[in-house]
């Protein structure tokens, strides 16, 4: 769970899949209306004439716009509401067409019922997202992220690996290097775009062998931050629950830039991926890579094997 200060995003996290599904729905419905308006017209039982086709095409463009927006925008709520507006349009239009003598009323009725069903979903998703994002942006300073994963290894093993901070960049994507200075202090370097980097020194605040580690940046660091990791045995020999908490507080004014630089748009997702890699490394000894990470490239071999490593940000 990630939380921007004074802003609870847990509702936003749980509603995400629904809004993504609605995004897909918009795209597909839009594509069908745009590309095959005659087919759509026949399917929903409206007369297949020029006016129907044009209306469907217009609806199609709107749907695609809403679909792309829902999938691409961090502010999904607004676009979901645009879907609700879209649904109302569809409903009104279907209502009018039903009065038309050429239409097969049954099928149109079915289509209307279908759209109404989606409207209910849209309203639900948009309301939940609105509630989640209700806090004003000005209050958001810094990021606090909490994530948890269960790993099929003993708490001791996991603790040992983590405690040796120079291991962290192997699975934490935003880190370039951590240099251990002494028992308490370490120097962290994080990657930034255009080959730049940010650096800070950190100290260990608490250290309980096999249980937990807490650290924070030394006062005056460019990026003030703190973190902790807790290792607790899962019930019934199910391995170890690893709970990570990280907090970053960049200097006022620079926040957006520095945070985006460190974590991209979604710090929560980034830490989640880091923990996934920690799990992979601890359970299998490596971070498995596929040919098509995310949607960045097609799933086919790269000319150079190193290309895939670089793309995924995994060192040998």
């Amino acid at each position: 769970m990630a939380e921007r200060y004074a802003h609870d995003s847990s509702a936003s996290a749980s509603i995400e899949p629904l809004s993504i599904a609605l995004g897909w729905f918009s795209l597909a419905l839009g594509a069908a209306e745009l590309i095959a308006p005659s087919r759509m017209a026949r399917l929903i039982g409206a007369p297949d004439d020029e006016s129907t086709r044009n209306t469907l095409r217009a609806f199609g463009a709107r749907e695609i716009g809403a679909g792309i927006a829902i999938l691409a925008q961090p502010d999904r709520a607004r676009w979901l509401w645009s879907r609700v507006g879209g649904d109302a349009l569809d409903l009104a239009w279907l209502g009018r067409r039903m009065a038309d003598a050429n239409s097969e009323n049954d099928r149109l009725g079915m289509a209307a019922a279908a759209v109404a069903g989606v409207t209910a979903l849209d309203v639900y998703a948009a309301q939940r997202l609105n509630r989640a994002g209700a806090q004003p942006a000005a209050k958001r300073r810094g990021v606090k992220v909490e994530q948890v994963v269960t790993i099929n290894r003993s708490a001791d093993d996991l603790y040992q690996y983590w405690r040796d901070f120079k291991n962290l960049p192997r699975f934490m994507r935003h880190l370039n290097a951590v240099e251990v200075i002494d028992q308490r202090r370490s120097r962290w370097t994080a990657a930034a775009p255009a080959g730049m980097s940010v650096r800070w020194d950190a100290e260990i605040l608490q250290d309980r062998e096999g249980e937990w580690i807490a650290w924070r940046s030394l006062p005056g660091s460019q990026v003030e931050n703190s973190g902790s990791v807790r290792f607790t045995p899962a019930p019934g020999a199910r391995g170890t629950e690893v709970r990570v908490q990280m907090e970053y507080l960049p200097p006022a004014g620079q926040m957006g830039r520095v945070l985006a630089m460190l974590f991209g748009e979604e710090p929560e997702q980034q830490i989640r991926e880091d923990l996934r890699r920690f799990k992979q490394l601890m359970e299998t000894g490596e971070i498995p890579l596929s040919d098509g990470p995310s949607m960045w490239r097609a799933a086919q071999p790269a000319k150079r094997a190193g290309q895939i490593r670089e793309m995924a940000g995994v060192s040998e």
Partner: protein
Amino acid sequence: MRATCWNGTRNIQVERVPDPQIVNASDAIVKITSTAICGSDLHLYNGFIPTMKRGDIMGHEFMGEVVETGKGVKNLKVGDRVVVPFPIACGHCAQCEREMYSLCENSNPNAWMAEKMWGYSPCGIFGYSHMLGGYAGGQAEYARVPFADVNPLKVPEELDDEQVLFLSDIFPTGYMAAEACGIQPGDTVAVWGCGPVGQFAIKSAYMLGAERVIAIDRFPYRLRMAHDKAGADTINYEECDIFEALEEMTGGRGPDHCIDAVGLEGHAPGIHGAYDKMKTVMMMETDRPVALRQAILACRSGGTVSVAGVYGGFIDKFPMGAIVNRSLTIKSGQTHVQRYMRPLLKRIQDGEIDPSFVITHRINLSDAANGYEIFAKKQEECMKVVMKP
């Protein structure tokens, strides 16, 4: 190398792409000797599974010879002849330890996508969308096989490719579907879909002690194979009402267990078909669960509905009431192939079954596009296409 690439809905082309190289220390490179087209590939071909990208290499049923191993590989060496299971498993996570290999927690690098759709992510699968890993598939000359110590099965020289190739997927899939039914002496099992998966489900149901298997489809040549080669009684759903036919054939009890070997592209005549077609075109549902609905309604109270057919997203008009009020058990999953490969290889070696009976088309990899088309359209009495690079 040459590889079968997805270039959009119903657009498959064999293209030149770079040869695979070792990326992870646990990888092996396999030079493919035989590879098949699966009903699951048709869901990608027909555009039902999201997160495909132009250029994705297809294929998850393949075998061949190990030509290179990463420095972490201990159990395989160059020259070994192997069959590769379609789910990629790490062998170390809690799910792998439970032998639930298709739920491996470490093999999907794109797990976040699957988590958005399904809550949690299953394993990565060769050539099966980015949501399920973005791994290049095996309808090609070579493939990179991750976790090579865990996944590929070495096969004896005396068995030829056609006898062992289907250990990669469809034989274990049919077997797991039948096993999930918990068949008791005297049981009747009904199987929807007489494609390759259905054929192996029928065979397996008999192996596991079923008294009688009733197979359902609409293509006479597929029903004929179910009858002649797999020993089932058959029903053509275009010629009768499935529910009534099954009721009649089971003395009014209904089949004890029902297997859905059809999946999300179920076909239905009449109003039901039109309904699901409209719903999927409008994206009100992503899948057409025609066979699944029938299987649930037809199943004997207290019986098992075992779903081997693949579903990807959301379905509509799901008869939950029948499940609850009649104590039905639903079982499903992508097959935990690694769990079944050795015992099923033994059955092949013992001569209990020769899985090659489903093969109707043997073609060169270069003709993959044509292979997909005839398999998708069920032309030329096509049951199973095997390709040689």
